[in-house]
């Protein structure tokens, strides 16, 4: 049992908890540990923390794993992990094992293998997973896909902007590049309005009936945030509240609980009421809407037979650029029972059926 070995186990444990640790981070970590005094727990902790964790949201997980793994006595481990013996770090072991210069390659290899081995039996592509209730447990698997989707979407939007040839000539850039051709402007550069990112306003149904879907949409909105100039987010059940500041990156499941706990989304009845929510949005937040705004609504439009107040959307449509609705239900169930989607559809630019993550991505990319 050497410390290197144990560190690897520790990395594997962190990865299992969903913290991404790359081989280069792992080698950094080993180097850092070589530099500090292992005898003192806080030094050891800081060395690991500063090299492995790059997001404050992961601190809690890190602390738990650290406690479980390195602090004997306090551990509260799962039975199946019992085979990993708790470790007290001993410097002597460590020096034996690593000569950093030579050991790096091997270390890198084995570490990356450890990473690959940790997704057991992921038979189904997470992108095609249905938004049904039973997939709630699999949310963790999907967490990794969000940034990828967000990035892909952003790339698409950038490409759209770059194809704009109807722009003014960027004199400075053109002259500058003409230097290489002796002052003859061979390439023309235009001023691209690359800064004009759309302003997005989202309304998200967070009620129980669309539980999984709302987790996804909240997480997606949170990860989209970096690509748009401004995103305002609102959540509702039968009362609406602004949640923009609550959307910090993190676990999608926690995100929804966090919203439910900290925002006033439940009103008098507690049942999903689109009409009431839209009405109070109109009363309180209507001023957020400008002609630049694109409104995204996430929900199944199941209104529990309340008034649908679709005039709010009609009003809204006059003021904003576009309204898109994302409905997690398959199209055959639209309009059945208390679904009022067809009523709202009249006032939306488009309604998308998004029963899987794939279709959600596809829908968003069409905006």
């Amino acid at each position: 049992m050497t410390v290197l070995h144990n560190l690897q186990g520790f990395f594997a444990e962190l990865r299992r908890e969903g913290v991404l640790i790359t081989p280069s981070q792992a080698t950094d970590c080993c180097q850092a540990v070589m530099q500090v005094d292992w005898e003192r727990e806080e030094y050891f902790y800081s060395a690991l923390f500063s090299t492995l964790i790059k997001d404050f949201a992961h601190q809690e997980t890190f602390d738990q794993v650290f406690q479980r793994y390195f602090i004997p006595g306090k551990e509260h481990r799962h039975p199946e992990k019992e085979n990993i013996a708790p470790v007290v770090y001993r410097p002597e072991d460590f020096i034996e094992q690593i000569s950093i210069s030579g050991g790096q390659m091997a270390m890198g290899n084995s570490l990356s293998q450890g990473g690959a081995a940790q997704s057991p039996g992921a038979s189904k592509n997470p992108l095609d997973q249905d938004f049904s209730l039973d997939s709630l447990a699999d949310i963790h698997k999907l967490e990794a896909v969000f940034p990828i989707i967000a990035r892909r979407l952003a790339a698409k939007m950038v490409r759209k902007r770059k194809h704009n040839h109807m722009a003014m000539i960027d004199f400075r850039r053109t002259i500058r590049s003409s230097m290489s051709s002796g002052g003859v402007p061979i390439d023309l550069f235009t001023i691209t309005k690359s800064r004009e990112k759309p302003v997005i306003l989202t309304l998200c149904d967070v009620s129980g009936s669309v539980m999984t879907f709302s987790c996804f949409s909240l997480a997606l909105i949170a990860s989209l945030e970096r690509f748009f100039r401004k995103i305002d987010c609102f959540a509702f059940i039968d009362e609406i509240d602004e949640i923009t500041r609550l959307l910090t990156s993190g676990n999608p499941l926690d995100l929804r609980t966090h919203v439910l706990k900290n925002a006033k989304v439940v009103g008098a009845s507690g049942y999903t009421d689109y009409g009431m929510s839209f009405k109070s949005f109109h009363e309180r937040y209507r001023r957020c809407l400008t002609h630049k705004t694109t409104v995204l609504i996430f929900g199944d439009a199941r209104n529990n037979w309340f008034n649908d107040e679709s005039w709010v959307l009609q009003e809204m449509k006059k003021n904003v650029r576009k309204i898109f609705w994302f409905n997690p239900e398959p199209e055959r169930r639209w309009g059945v029972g208390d679904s009022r989607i067809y009523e709202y559809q009249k006032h939306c630019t488009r309604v998308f059926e998004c029963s899987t993550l794939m279709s959600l991505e596809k829908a968003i990319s069409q905006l």
Partner: protein
Amino acid sequence: MQDRIQMLKNSMEKADYICNDKTAIVLFLAEALQKPILVEGPAGVGKTAIAQAFSRMKGIPLMRLQCYEGIDESKALYEWNYKRQLLHIQAAVNQDPRQVEEEIFSETFLLSRPLLNSIVVDTPTVLLIDEIDKVDFEFEALLLELLSEFQITIPELGTIKARHIPYVFLTSNASRELSEALKRRCLYLYLDFPSRDMEEQILLLKVPDLPEQLAGKVAGIIRRLRGVEMKKLPSIAESIDWAASLMWLGKDDVDVETLLQTLNTLVKHHEDLEKIERLLHIRQDLEFR
């Protein structure tokens, strides 16, 4: 080892910055591993100040790149001085064109911006890249070469390697998530609001002649005040201002009335101000519960 951390803490304190063990270790590691530090945390906890203090401690210059939305390589890395190049071409009509071409793409015609500056100067430097979360996603990629290899590649000139590896600090308010590639290249330091004792020390250091008892009181009140949910929590800078203003007002104790009078040095948001005032009026104490 322990001595070295302690020494680092002491010399940082001499440079007017009080840090805890955690921070000191990260600073130590950054120096040992020659890696940039990514500093995150709420506004006003001394993210920028740590870089400034570090440069004071080392006695080396600080180069600062203030990031903003829309910053690009010509403002951060380098730019060709194309006016000078034009003039040079015109002046050198009768020369061998190939030679002229070589000349105009030499370092004489290069305008170096903070990032390039920080690696070509003859002395070691501290490079502060402030508010990195403000830049566009694409700009981050530009920094990668600098942050991992400490070099900058200019297509016309070749690669410029750092003469001395700079100490790099990146600060971020976490207004958006940074790319994995960037994070991977840095050590991570999360600065939170200081503990009560640490804040007391900071106050004593930053406000000369502040009575110790008052510093303790102020630190305690600020600590509790930060427990209230507000739009913007009072930062260290604001607690320093408050302590100083209390001292100037000749107070040696803080009561509800004093706080009400001086609340606007601490709370800068209208809604927060109303909330705290209401709390103070109802409870008539400084517990904020």
